[in-house]
């Protein structure tokens, strides 16, 4: 029968005395636009400051205010920061979803809730902590208009008491969050947090097993989101022309970049900007501007998501054939039009690999961490100029918009290399050049930049119909020559793209392959398979397309290889099938998740276990 009829004392006694330290997921369910973001960030930061590995994921609707939002903090002493489906600790602030949120919990979970919601009647197998938020907020926030915002900070105090989060750290996180300029707001919020803490310590009885204990696993680390990490990477790569058209989840990449560039790329002596950032009229224009700038010698970039990428398709093809460098960030999300634009996916892989018409193929980089968002951005700008072609950096909403811990980013040690660009002096020496001639055998010709002060510098840039001297031609031999050189260039890229990361386990007969944000769930799943089923699993994380030789070698060493895809049609696996021998393809298995949430380890483990017949 329904759990509703079970009296609280019985099932809960099973948990008595058990304690779950630094290993739980806490979810805050609120309403979009209610200002809970600050309270959630402070909570996450406070745990982080106590040295505990932590991640924060915001699940939000495509809406400005009024629809449900969930923020999930995962604390893991093992360092697992991917999504975990099970929620151990719920803060139920949204009357709309509270019932469903509570019903979804597993037995033994804890619920902090707004007292009038009367949630404790729903189930008897949970630990309920009612809090009269409205009563508590009045005294600490005399200004009624601010109460809606400040109210959230009360649950920070309640949760701090329940989970043994040190209040000094809450205070420190608050001060950090508000900055020096908003000291008053910080004070007000601190009052609310304290009120929550006092109420909890006087009124509530701790009954659930979750709590935190100080560790030392986050010393020196930073908390950042992937879009900010990419933005910083672009700035330190020396980007000079940035074009964009707003679209979730990529907007904050450029918005963050604008902030940093204003601070660090305006020259104090002259007040002049060493960059141009243009909000274009659409993605047809933003890519055109990026390519125009790349052609003229700038390190240029644009950032978008799937719908924007679709619009860029024709221009990207021109960039491929005309051989123009540019970096294109695709922060992947779900589907066109209205749909799930604020949910994550790795659904643009196939489209991006071959974007545009005719024979086109493009290099793609797949960062999986904040550090890689930074370092691979720098690598991508180098790569685009080295190979004179559009380069894609694929992240996704989970990486781009969620908060992640990271080691601080390493300063780029290698000087910038602008690729094969001939100057006027070079032209004097050489007496001229052929733009699309493969002089060095790597498929990459030498180019000149518009404005190069030399009568031999100019050349005519156009699409597929050109010969080695950049002259117009429709001859079949010229066309084939050019196509073969472009194909060769792509093959050369294989040994220049970022190499995969590999973790081999002794005796492993099966392997897992993943890219980007699937990494967290993939690694956790490897551990689950080992710990729970005694199955040793090796792991290969691909970091770029075209694939390197490591892919084939990895598959050859394993009987079965599970390819993880955050999309319905196994796009990563399909991409591999196109270039592998049939005997290797036969070893591939697919693990797919496409519900719009970040993939979690349990989903991978369960799918593999099922297919392995365990």
């Amino acid at each position: 029968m329904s759990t509703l009829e079970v009296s609280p004392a019985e099932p809960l006694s099973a948990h008595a005395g058990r304690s779950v330290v630094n290993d739980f997921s806490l979810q805050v369910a609120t309403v979009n636009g209610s200002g809970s973001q600050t309270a959630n960030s402070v909570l996450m930061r406070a745990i982080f400051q106590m040295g505990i590995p932590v991640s924060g994921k915001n699940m939000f609707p495509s809406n400005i205010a009024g629809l449900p939002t969930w923020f999930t903090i995962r604390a893991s002493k093992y360092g697992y920061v991917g999504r975990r489906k099970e929620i151990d600790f719920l803060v139920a602030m949204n009357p709309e979803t509270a019932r469903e949120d509570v019903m979804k919990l597993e037995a033994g979970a804890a619920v902090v809730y707004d007292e009038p919601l009367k949630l404790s009647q729903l189930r008897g197998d949970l630990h309920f902590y009612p809090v009269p938020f409205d009563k508590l907020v009045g005294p600490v926030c005399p200004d009624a208009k601010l109460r809606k915002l400040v109210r959230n900070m009360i649950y920070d105090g309640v949760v701090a008491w329940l989970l043994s989060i040190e209040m000094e750290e809450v205070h420190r996180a608050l001060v950090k969050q508000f900055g020096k300029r908003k000291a008053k707001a910080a004070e007000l919020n601190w009052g609310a947090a304290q009120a929550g803490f006092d109420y909890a310590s006087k009124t509530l009885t701790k009954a659930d097993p979750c709590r935190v204990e100080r560790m030392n696993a986050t010393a020196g680390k930073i908390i950042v989101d992937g879009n900010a990490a990419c933005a910083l990477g672009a700035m330190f790569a020396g980007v000079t022309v940035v074009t964009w058209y707003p679209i979730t989840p990529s907007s904050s990449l450029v918005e963050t970049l604008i902030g940093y560039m204003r601070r660090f790329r305006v020259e104090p002596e002259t007040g002049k900007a060493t960059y141009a950032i243009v909000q274009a009229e659409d993605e047809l224009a933003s890519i055109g501007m990026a390519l125009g700038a790349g052609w003229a010698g700038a390190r240029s970039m644009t950032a978008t998501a799937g719908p924007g990428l679709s619009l860029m398709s024709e221009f990207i093809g021109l960039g491929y054939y005309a051989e123009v460098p540019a970096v294109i960030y695709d922060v992947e999300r779900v589907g066109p039009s209205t749909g799930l634009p604020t949910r994550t996916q790795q659904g643009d892989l196939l489209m991006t690999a071959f974007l545009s018409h005719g024979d086109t193929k493009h290099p793609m980089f797949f960062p999986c961490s904040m550090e890689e968002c930074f370092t691979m951005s720098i690598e991508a700008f180098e790569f685009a100029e080295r190979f004179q072609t559009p380069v894609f950096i694929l992240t996704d909403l989970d990486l781009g918009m969620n908060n992640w811990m990271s080691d601080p980013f390493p300063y780029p040690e290698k000087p910038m290399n602008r690729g094969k660009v001939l100057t006027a002096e070079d032209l004097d020496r050489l007496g001229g050049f052929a733009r699309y001639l493969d002089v060095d055998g790597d498929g990459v010709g030498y180019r000149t930049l518009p404005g190069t002060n030399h009568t031999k510098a100019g050349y005519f840039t156009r699409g597929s119909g050109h010969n080695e001297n950049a002259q117009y031609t429709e001859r079949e031999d010229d066309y084939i020559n050019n196509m073969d050189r472009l194909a060769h260039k792509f093959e050369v890229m294989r040994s220049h793209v970022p190499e995969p990361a590999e973790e081999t386990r002794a005796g492993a007969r099966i392997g897992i392959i993943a890219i980007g944000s699937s990494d967290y769930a993939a690694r956790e799943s490897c551990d689950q398979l080992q710990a729970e089923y005694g199955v040793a699993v090796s792991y290969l994380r691909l970091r770029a397309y075209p694939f390197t030789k490591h892919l084939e070698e990895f598959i050859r060493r394993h009987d079965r290889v599970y390819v993880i895809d955050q999309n319905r049609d196994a796009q990563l696996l399909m991409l591999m099938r196109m270039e592998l021998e049939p005997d290797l393809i036969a070893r591939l298995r697919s693990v797919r998740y496409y519900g719009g949430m970040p993939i979690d380890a349990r989903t991978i483990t369960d799918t593999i276990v099922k297919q392995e017949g365990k």
Partner: protein
Amino acid sequence: MSTAAAPPPKKTNRIGLEVLSYKGSKTTLCAGCGHNAISERVVECFYELGVEPWRVAKLSGIGCSSKSPAYFLGLSHSFNGVHGRMPALATGAILANSSLLGLGVSGDGDTASIGLGQFMHMVRRNLPMIYIIEDNGVYGLTKGQFSATANVGSTLKTGAANDLPPFDCCALALKWGATFVARSFSGDKKQLQAILKTAISHRGLSVIDVVSPCVTFNDHQGSTKSYAYMKEHDLVLNELDYVPAQDDIAVEIPEGEAMDVRLHDGSHLRIRKLGRDFDPTNRLAALAAIEDAESKGEVLTGVLYVNTGKPTFLDLLNLPAEPIATLPESRVRPSRAVLEEVMEELR
């Protein structure tokens, strides 16, 4: 002294280049196509003003018109882009290197249909460059369909009449912020030269709509973009006299007879009104004059508007004088200390 007869000195311009240095490859457009005449004017004007060809970036979309950059200024860089999206390429290129002289060539299909959005946004930004619309009222390259600049009632060779109102590219440019707006006719050599030279000297977006008949698909009776129609209906607004910067302009102009506009590079444009009173610094008057002419079936040509004082997009972006594309690493990669500062903020 040598006794051998010295070859006659070659005619060169201010910077010592022959006119040959301003030519491109042989045209592949139809003989008599208006676009060819425009190419010739480009060659003459850039030669005569002594513009360094390597300072010019030619940009175009897709169409017969957009092919024409191959037929002039062969020493310049050129980018033949995708249909209707030359403005984006041009914007990127000029942001990257603000010292480039951007010369955009487009068609009426390229600009007024597929590229209307990009055209309008470029106008709005007042990006400093020259934007020539080679306007023949049809899609030449796809064999003669109506474009959005075709007049109501104008017919195709098949006899089909256009029943939708035309976009007037000059009116659009005037409304949204171009700072030099002119219309000309590919058959009016002198007027087109003066306008092109002014555009070369102007700092800001110059929009030049040139009626340029398509002899193959739109030069028949019933077309309002034919040579014959233009001969009868070209309503010349003003007489133009371009005076290069290096020429002596001490000659006084009698009060009230001509307007003298000092251009960015020190050259001058003298605008002498013809017939009616018209002030080319008055945007609204220009719009009204276009409307008025159109209602009478006339094509108003000449300088419609000039404004030398408006900031360009480059000014708004606060760019330095030198090209940002090639700034040294020390100026585009912030220091180690900056990275450390940011990392500290994120701790």
